[in-house]
C-alpha cells in the first residue's frame, strides 16, 4: 500500500541500504580504531607471545562490574563501579569467565597463534588460524565443526570461520562460540552467523 507524504510518494528502501548509514559511536558503532585509542587492544609483545587477550568493547563509564567480579586472577581492574575495565594483559589466562558474565556481550577473547600451538600437524592451514571466543545469545546455536560467516562490528563480512567448540556458560547461560579464523580477522571478529538453510 502506497503512502502519500509531504515530500511526495516515499521510496521503498532495501534493508541493505540502511546498513550503510553512519558508522560512528553516535550510532552505536565501535571501530577498531576507537578501541585502539582507548587502549583496549593488546600491545604487540603480548600477541607475539601468543597469550590470550580479552577485547573489551566497553568504552563508557557505566555502573557495571561483573567482568571484574568474576575474574579469578585479578586481570580486570576497576576501582569504582563506574570505572571502565582495565586489563592487565599478563594476568589473563583466557578462562572466558568475563566474556560469559558481561551483560553487554561486549567481550571477545582472542587466542593468537592458536593453530600454530594447538593444531599443528592436524590440519594444513593450522599456522594461520587463531581462535576467537564470541558470546552469543541467539538461535540457531552454531555446532562444533560447522562453517559460520564471521562479521565485524558493523556487520561487514570478514571471512568464514570454523566452529571449534561451543560452550554454554553454566553460571550465566551465555553461549560462547569458539571459532577458528585467519589471524588477520581475529581482532575484528565480533559476530557469527550460521550458514544453515
Amino acid at each position, binding site marked *: 500500500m502506497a*503512502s502519500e507524504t509531504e515530500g511526495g510518494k516515499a521510496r521503498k528502501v532495501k534493508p541493505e541500504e540502511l*546498513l550503510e548509514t*553512519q558508522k560512528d559511536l553516535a550510532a*552505536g558503532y565501535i571501530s577498531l580504531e576507537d578501541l585502539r585509542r582507548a587502549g583496549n587492544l593488546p600491545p604487540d609483545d603480548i600477541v607475539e607471545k601468543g597469550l590470550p587477550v580479552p577485547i573489551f568493547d566497553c568504552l563508557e563509564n557505566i555502573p557495571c562490574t561483573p567482568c571484574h567480579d568474576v575474574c579469578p586472577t585479578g586481570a580486570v581492574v576497576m576501582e569504582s563501579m563506574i570505572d571502565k575495565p582495565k586489563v592487565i594483559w599478563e594476568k589473563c589466562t583466557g578462562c572466558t569467565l568475563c566474556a560469559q558474565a558481561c551483560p553487554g556481550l561486549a567481550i571477545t577473547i582472542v587466542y593468537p597463534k592458536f593453530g600454530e600451538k594447538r593444531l599443528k600437524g592436524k590440519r594444513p592451514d593450522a599456522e594461520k588460524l587463531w581462535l576467537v571466543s564470541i558470546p552469543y545469545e541467539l*538461535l540457531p546455536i552454531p555446532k562444533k565443526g560447522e562453517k559460520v560467516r564471521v562479521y565485524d*562490528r558493523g556487520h561487514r563480512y570478514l571471512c568464514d570461520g570454523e566452529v571449534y567448540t561451543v560452550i554454554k556458560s553454566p553460571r550465566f547461560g551465555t553461549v560462547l562460540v569458539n571459532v577458528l579464523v585467519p589471524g588477520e580477522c581475529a581482532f575484528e571478529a565480533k559476530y557469527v552467523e550460521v550458514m544453515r538453510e
Partner: protein
Amino acid sequence: MSPISGLVDRRIYEHPILKFDRGRRVRIIFEGREIPAYENETIAAALYAAGILHFNYSGRLKRPRGPFCMIGKCSQCMMRVNGVPHVRTCITLVEDGMIVEREDTHEATLPTPTKKMKIEYVNKDYDIVVVGAGPAGLSAAMEAAKLGAKVAVLDQNPFLGGQLIKQTHKFFGTKDSYAGTRGVDIAKMLVDEIKDYENIDIYPAAQVIGYYRREGVMVAFQSLRLAEYRVLRLKGKRYVIATGAMERSLVFPGNDLPGVMGAGAAQTLMNVFGIRPADEVLIIGAGNVGVIIAYQAAQAGIKVKAVIDILPKTAAYLVHASKIRRMGIPVLMRHTIREAYGKGRVEGAVIYEVDEKFRPIPGSEKDLEVDGVWMAVGLTPSVELLELMGAKLKFVRELGGYVPLRTEYLETTLDGVFVAGDATGIEEASTAMMEGKIAGISAAFSLGYKSDEAEKERLKAIKWLDEFRSSPHYARIKEGVKKVLITK
C-alpha cells in the same frame, strides 16, 4: 499473516534464553470463533497469538484499536468479556470457555454477566501496605518484613515481578544488585523469596481504586477470576508506593493502528508469553530500551528493519547499541517517523531524516514495510495514586515527568507515605531495588522496628545509589533528584 484466523499460531517454541510455562490448554470464544489459549496467558496474549490485533473501536471515529502498554495502564486493550464491559484483557488471565468481544469504547452497555458475580469484602490492618510488586515493591516488602513488620503487597498484574519478568539480558550494576543475572531470573528469586515470609500477604490482580485520607484506608479491587472479586479495604500504618511507570507514545498519523505499540508491550508479548507480535518491525527510539528490545526481537526470531532516533547521538549504553550494530540491525540517528499506515493494522511506516534543527530534510523519506511499529520513546512515572493520596509532586524533566518530593529515606510530603522505583523518576530496575530497600527499612523504622543490620543495609543502599548515579549516563538523574529532595 492473515489478520484474523483461528489457525495462526504466533507462539515461540524455541528461544535462546527463555522457556515458556504456558500451562494447560484451554479455549476462548472470540466473536463466535474458537481460539486456542493456555491458562497462563492473558486474554490479550491469546488473541495476539492467534493474530488478532484489533481489540476495540475508538469512541468518535470508530477506528480499530489495539493494546499499547500490555501492563494494565493504557486501557486500549479493553473488551467485553463474559458480558462484562471494559475488561483490561492484558492483565486478565484466560479461562476456559470465556466469551470475548470487541467493544465500542464509548458505547459499552451495562454488564450482562454470564455468571453470577461474587463479591467478597476483606477488611485488614497492616503495618505497611506496599502498592506495586515490581523490583522496588518486592524489595521494600521484604526488607520491612525482615524487621518484623506485617506487610501487604498489591499489584494490578496477575504476575509478580513487575517489568523484571520480561528482561532476558543480564543486568548491569554490581554484586549487590544482582549484576550478571538476567532480569527474569532476578524476578524468580525475589518472588520465590517473598513467598517464604509469613508476615507478607500478597494480593495479585488487585487494582487500587481509592484512598480515603481521613481514615487512611486504601481500597482495591481484586479479581480472583472473572466475575469473582474481592474488595480489599486495607488500612496501612505506613504506605510504600511503587507503582512504576508507563511508556510514552508519539504523535503521528496512524499511531493508533493495531500493531503500533510501546516497545515494552512487545517485550511482554515476546518474553512473558512467548508470542511474536510481528514479523518485521520498526523501533522508534535508540535509547537503552529501544536497542535492548531490538536484540530481544532478534532472540524471538523477529526481523528489526531499523531502530531510529531523532537525536544525533544514541542515549543508550554503547555496549547495548554496538551489540545490535554488529548483528546488522540498522541504527538511524536523526530519523523519525512521519506516519504508520495500513488497513485495520500497521502494514508499513514512512520515516524521514531531520537536520540539526529537527526540520525534515526534503526527499529523505523512506518507506519501510513492517507489521509492527514499537515506540521506545521514554517513560513517565505513574504517580496517579500519589496524587490521589495528596503527596506533593513536582515536574522534573530529568526524572521523566511529575514525581513526588521526598526525603533521603524516600518519605513523601505525607508522613508515613514512602515511594520507590520508577514512580520516583525513570531509572533502572537495580536502582528500584535499592530504593525499595531504603523505603521498606525506613517505613519499618518509623514504626519502631529496629536492627543495626538494617541500618547498615540502608546506608549501603544510599551510598550505592550515589555511586551508580555518578556515571555520566545518570548525571541528569542526579541533578533531577536534587530538585525534589526535602528534609523533614
